[in-house]
């Protein structure tokens, strides 16, 4: 049987497949069908692309520890929702990524520290996730690419009851589809 050859397009590569050993072409990927290829085609196993090499998927940068895009967390001060200047380069990098990869989708999970009402803390986390979403869209990401949600105080990164710990919990985590 003759295999079908696929060319991976960066824009159409399903993000979920980045994390797996085998990558399958997404629906819109430009494909070249050899004459006589059967209807029930088998896809050629594709090795994960190597970051940095010409033609590599830009999505690989999301996992590359050397890329700013692998950083996903924005921390907030107590009772604050503004994105601090130190996180601007991070948010800008993700905005650029979303702009250049229109198929990319992001979930921003806002979080609050444990003090006070769980539902009010859902509100505080929502304000934080929307703050980063707003900055991303002002920098050119499309509204439809991003969902801002809140986990309130329910998913602490740090479980102790101290200011040091609470500071780690007042955060936004940016996740791309396939990562949550």
């Amino acid at each position, binding site marked *: 049987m003759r295999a079908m050859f696929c060319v991976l397009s960066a824009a159409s590569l399903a993000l979920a497949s980045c994390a797996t050993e085998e990558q399958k072409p997404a629906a819109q990927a430009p494909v070249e069908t050899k004459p006589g290829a059967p209807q029930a085609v088998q896809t050629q196993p594709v090795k994960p692309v190597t970051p940095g090499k010409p033609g590599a998927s830009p999505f690989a940068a999301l996992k590359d520890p050397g890329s700013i895009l692998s950083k996903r967390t924005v921390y907030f001060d107590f009772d604050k929702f503004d994105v601090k200047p130190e996180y601007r380069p991070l948010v800008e990098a993700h905005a650029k990524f979303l702009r250049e990869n229109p198929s990319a989708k992001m*979930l921003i999970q806002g979080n609050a520290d444990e003090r006070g009402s769980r539902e009010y803390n*859902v*509100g505080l986390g929502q304000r934080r996730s*929307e703050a980063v979403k707003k900055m991303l869209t002002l920098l050119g990401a499309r509204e439809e690419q991003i969902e801002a949600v*809140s986990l309130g105080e329910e*998913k602490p990164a740090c479980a102790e*009851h101290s200011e040091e710990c609470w500071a780690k919990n007042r955060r936004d985590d940016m996740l791309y589809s396939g990562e949550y």
Partner: protein
Amino acid sequence: MTRLLALFLLCIPAAHAQLSIEITGAGAQRIPIAIVPFVGEKTLPPGISSIVRADLERSGFFRGLELPPIAPEPTEATSINYAEWRSRLADALLVGSVQQRPDGRFEVRFRVHDVVKQQPLGGIAYTLNKDQVRATAHRISDFVYEKLTGEKGVFSTRIAYVVKRGNRYELQIADYDGANAETALASFEPIISPVWSPDGKRLAYVSFENKKPVVYIHTLADGRRHVVANFKGSNSAPAWTPDGNRLAVVLSREGGSQLFMINADGSGVRRLASSSAIDTEPRFSPDGQSIYFTSDRGGTPQIYRMSATGGEPQRVTFEGSYNVSPRISPDGKTLAYITRNDSKFQVALLDLSTRQVQILTDSDRDESPSFSPNGRMILLATVIGERGVLSAVSADGRVKQRLSTAAGDVREPAWGPFIE
């Protein structure tokens, strides 16, 4: 006190002891009641009279008298010598008996007496199976409580709460005293904000199983559940209308955390109010005319009230910089909420007519207050020794109880309605 505690532990069989109860305070004026062990009740462990006694003492309105063995043992059929019971310092007397019927079921009969007025107040005969001992005892407690206080008892009601063990979350339903706990939902993602439908058959809650908050309704009898609100963004803080047909929810689908109304089947969503603040934790007044909710529109989170049809909200809390989680009493006259004092989060009770505020608890990480359906007690979550426990405090602040599990954090309590 030790003896009381021992009694409670005895009357909750270990197999069902999901939650154990400890009383840490008592009412000032408690009715001394003599509860005579029901003749023949040993055939129905753990013993109806001990469950009734625990119920009545837990209410804070009764004190069970210590009784010497009395021969012959009085039953509901006995002619009562009231002077004798007065000399035993009893204001009230409960007597009864248990008999096995030829069909293998049991018959429990009882009579309650007002010893001061020297008159019987009535009694009932119940037929039951062996697995209905606790439920029957709670019915008897309800009868005695209502006869002697003039108010409905809550001994047959149920509570919902969330237990977290490791990374596992369980939404549990138990009798009001923590017995007979059952798991309605188990998840590896958080569950918060359970609220009972007015008919006590369904729970609405927020589950994070989709990596974001989504509102569900869960029918307890068959375990069926459906999504009520899963819009883009966060969906949380459900509150039933008193008719059980609709819910107020908090959605971020139009930006921010804002109040919406939605039908219980998830249809007909419409915005209720509009602000640039966090508006959350809605609760309807018992008449359905008003909604109490938390909002930080004034700079700090405070409680507001507005018409259930929308309109301009009025601020309700003024003392302190953090007042959240409003819960209106069943009679609509008082408002329980969580207030921050320095760094302590405690249950406060606001008298809506006099504007008087009373702090009811002495713990410091209280959350999620919930009125008993007769308004006498408030169930809440707090933290003791780094563990989440449930606690109950009487609306006058005098009686305090603690319910805890052997393992795991307990939180998000919700006291269910009266069940007919």
